[in-house]
Each structure stands twice: as structure tokens, then as C-alpha cells.
């Protein structure tokens, strides 16, 4: 009986493995959001010479869980003027695209267990990075839809600003990544990491790294580029009318995007799971995963550091900065890189 079941399932092993990986990564990602919120609040506190949340549980670790419980039980208000269907759809789009984007991120070497070669990713697409950009751009739809369906001038303005900002900075993001892609000669994220075995790309493409980081911060709508949420002018931007869990979903989307962007920077510029200074043993999959996580963690801390340091940029300055400085610099970087590749 069991043999026949195993025989029946044998050709579908890849499906089972894939499903398990997908579930693990989705749960891991979603549960890392409260931790990231906790980290941000604690770190922000320290940057402002205060303590941050420290009442709920040890080191205030219970605070994000208390907050999410509160949000779960809050009344979900939908105002009469809203377009109900789009209003409900928008947060789902944001979270969905955020999670799907992360599924393309490899975060470790493939390892072998029970004669199965298991890669540390949900999907290893041969145009990985293109796919990441494509899906993460879909997230803009969620924000625009939220702004439109709220039927509120602040939401609409916030949604439009956000989409304009994300589309502008996506250009820089792509152009900066192109330098790395040209050096590697591959769009596959795993191959890009493998190409950095000896030297991380940050040393070969320092300008691209800076451009990518700035554009990445803008792409995730984080301070100092958090224009869509400019409290002084737009209340809360595109999620002004959202409350309860629907608001929390926007929040979740933003934090997942933060993780994804940090992971992407790690993969493209910091050599992914390769450790350069301290040799780290493999230990099945723990070593590379640890190296990768540490890099992502440091990048996340820098994101929080930036947020607590810089004031918000004015909207026209943001656009000028994006189009007149970042894009030309990215083009220049691309040109120089291509010249070097042709010569050597």
C-alpha cells in the first residue's frame, strides 16, 4: 500500500518539495515582519536617545504581536464613497506581489538531503532579476488602486505620487543592476552570486551599488523618500482610509519589500552567501544562510539608520534627483562598464 503511494508520488517529488519550500518561505517571511517592526522601533528609539518599546515581554519583543493582535480585532471601516471591490483588492495586491517577489530570491547554496538536491529558493528562473523587477512593479498597482478606490483627495494624491516615484526610480534600479548583469553575463540570480565567489560586485561597481541602494530605498517608499506617506500634506497618503487588518497588509507589504530589496542588494553587490573575510563552514545549509541573513540584517539596519537621520525630500526635488542625477549617473556607469568589458 505505502509502496504504491510512494511509487505514485515519485515523479511528483519536485512538486512536494516546491510546495513545502513555498510554505516555509511564506510563513518565515510573514513572521519576520513583526520582528522587523520590533527591530525598527527599538533601533529608532536608540537613534533618538530613548529606549523604544520595552514593556511587553523581554526587550519589548511582545510589542509587535500585541500590535498585530490589536489590528486583527479592529473594526474594518469601509466608507460609503469607496469602490468596494478595488478597496478590498488593493492591499491584497500589495502583499501578494511582495511575497511573490521574495519567492525568486535565492538565499543559500543548494544542498543534498535524502538524495534530493534542494535549492534554497522557491523558483530559480533563468531571467530571475527581470522577473523580480516585473513583479515588484506590479505592487504599484496595489498602491494606485488604493488611492483611486478610497475616493479621497489625499489618498489619490498619495497613490499618484507613489506610483510616479516608483516608476521613476525603477529606471535607475534597472540601469544600475544592468552593470552587474553585464559583468556576470547572466540574469539568473544564483549565477550572479556564483560569479562573485572571489570578489563581490560592490568593489567592481561601487557607483552602481550606491545608485541601486538609493533607488531601492525610494522603491520601497522608505524615508527619506516616503513621499506617498508625507503626513504634513497627505495625512497618510494612499492608506488614509484604511483601517485594521487592511492597513496592516500595506504595512506588511512595505516591510516585506524592505527585506526583498535588502536581499536583492546582497545578491547583486555583496556576494550573496559568500563570506569573504571570515570562512564559514557549509553545515548542510546553515552556513550560507547565516552569512546571507547577516548581510541582509546589516542592510536593514542601514535602512532604519537612514530613516532616523534624513528628513523627507520635497516632491519636486525627489523627481529632479531621480531624473536629472540618478538616471544620468546610471547611464554613465553603464557606458563605462560596457567600455571596460569591450576592452578587457
Amino acid at each position, binding site marked *: 500500500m505505502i509502496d504504491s503511494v510512494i511509487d505514485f508520488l515519485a515523479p511528483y517529488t519536485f512538486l512536494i518539495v516546491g510546495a513545502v519550500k513555498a510554505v516555509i518561505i511564506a510563513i518565515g517571511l510573514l513572521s519576520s515582519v513583526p520582528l522587523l517592526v520590533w527591530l525598527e522601533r527599538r533601533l529608532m528609539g*536608540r*537613534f533618538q*536617545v*530613548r529606549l523604544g518599546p*520595552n514593556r511587553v515581554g523581554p526587550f519589548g519583543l511582545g510589542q509587535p504581536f500585541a500590535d498585530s493582535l490589536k489590528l486583527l480585532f479592529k473594526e474594518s471601516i469601509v466608507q460609503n464613497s469607496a469602490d468596494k471591490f478595488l478597496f478590498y483588492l488593493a492591499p491584497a495586491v500589495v502583499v501578494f506581489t511582495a511575497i511573490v517577489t521574495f519567492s525568486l530570491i535565492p538565499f543559500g547554496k543548494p544542498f543534498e538531503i535524502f538524495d534530493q538536491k534542494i535549492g534554497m529558493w522557491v523558483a530559480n528562473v533563468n531571467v530571475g532579476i527581470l522577473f523580480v523587477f516585473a513583479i515588484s512593479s506590479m505592487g504599484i498597482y496595489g498602491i494606485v488602486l488604493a488611492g483611486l478606490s478610497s475616493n479621497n483627495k489625499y489618498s489619490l494624491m498619495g497613490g499618484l505620487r507613489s506610483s510616479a516615484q516608483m516608476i521613476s526610480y525603477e529606471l535607475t534600479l534597472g540601469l544600475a543592476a544592468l552593470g552587474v548583469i553585464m559583468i556576470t553575463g547572466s540574469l539568473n540570480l544564483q549565477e550572479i552570486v556564483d560569479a562573485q565567489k572571489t570578489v563581490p560586485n560592490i568593489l567592481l561597481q561601487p557607483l552602481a551599488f550606491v545608485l541601486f541602494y538609493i533607488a531601492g530605498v525610494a522603491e520601497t517608499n522608505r524615508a527619506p523618500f516616503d513621499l506617498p506617506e508625507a503626513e504634513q500634506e497627505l495625512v497618510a497618503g494612499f492608506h488614509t482610509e484604511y483601517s485594521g487588518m487592511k492597513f496592516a497588509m500595506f504595512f506588511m507589504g512595505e516591510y516585506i519589500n524592505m527585506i526583498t530589496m535588502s536581499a536583492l542588494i546582497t545578491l547583486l553587490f555583496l556576494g550573496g552567501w559568500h563570506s569573504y573575510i571570515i570562512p564559514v563552514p557549509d553545515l548542510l545549509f546553515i552556513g550560507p544562510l547565516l552569512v546571507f541573513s547577516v548581510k541582509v540584517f546589516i542592510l536593514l539596519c542601514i535602512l532604519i*539608520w*537612514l530613516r532616523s*537621520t*534624513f528628513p523627507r525630500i520635497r516632491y519636486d526635488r525627489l523627481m*529632479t534627483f531621480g531624473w536629472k542625477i540618478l538616471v544620468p549617473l546610471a547611464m554613465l556607469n553603464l557606458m563605462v562598464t560596457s567600455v571596460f568589458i569591450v576592452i578587457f
Partner: protein
Amino acid sequence: MFKLQSVTQLANETVVGVKNLLTGMGVTFKNMISPPTTQCYPEIKREMPARYRGRHFLTRNSEGLENCVGCELCAANCPVGCIHVEAAENSEGNRVSKGERYARVYEINLLRCIYCGYCEEACPEDAVILREHYELANYDRDCYIADKEELLTYPEPNQFRVNYLGNTTVVKK
């Protein structure tokens, strides 16, 4: 904004701009490694300044007699009228204060009081004083009519009336 004459000027501005940004990052980093200024209140309590105007108390002199002579100047001077005094004569058998009269009833409505300290200033005998006790929260409104007995008991500074947490400490500044 970007009408710059020469490339050198542009380069200069860029260098200065980046330097400024890094200085800002440095300031926040220094903040991060400096100890937080937060004092976790119920566990750690500040010692209040000596002239802090907190709760009222009635004083006694060195012989153990009450300083209050029941003149009602505090009540008359109170801008919100939260002090109620009823005076009575001292007698040989019942000597409460050193003067002729004493306060038979002395009540302060702590909810109405604005803690201005005028009663303290008006008092000719330094009988009513405002001290550094600021933890006046309670669950019962009736507790806020402080009668003479309560005003005469002088608890240690900055202690909960009920030490709920059992971990009360006082920090010296």
C-alpha cells in the same frame, strides 16, 4: 538648482553634500551608542527638586504640636477655593496647637487644587506646605478629599502610597 558654471563646482558641491549627509549619519550613530535618557518610571523614580509643589502636608513643631492656628488665610487665599478650615479654641485639657486656636477640620480637595502654592505663601505659621510627592493617582474619587489626619502623616518622599510593584527606588540626579 543645478545651474552650475563648471564641472569643478559641481564636483565640489557633490563632495560637500555627501560629507554633510555622512555627518548627519554620524550624529545619529553617536546618538545610538550614547546611553538613553529615558528613565523607566515605575521602576526608577526621580528625586524631585526641593521646591517642587506636589501634595500638601500640615507640619508640627518640635514639641509635637500642630503649627496650624486655624486662621483660614490659606482658604481665603486659595484661588480655586479647595481648602476648608474650621477653627476651634484650644483648652487646657486639649492643647493641639501653640496658639489660641487650632484647626478642628482641615480639608483640601486635591482634585480641585491647582498646586499653585498660594496657601503655603499665605500661611503665617508655615503650617501648610507643598512637598515633592507627585504620585497622586487613585481609583477612588473620594480619596481626594485629604483630611487633617492624612495631611499630618508624612510619607517618605516618592513612595507609592501602596507599593504595588515592590520595586520602588529613588534615583539621585
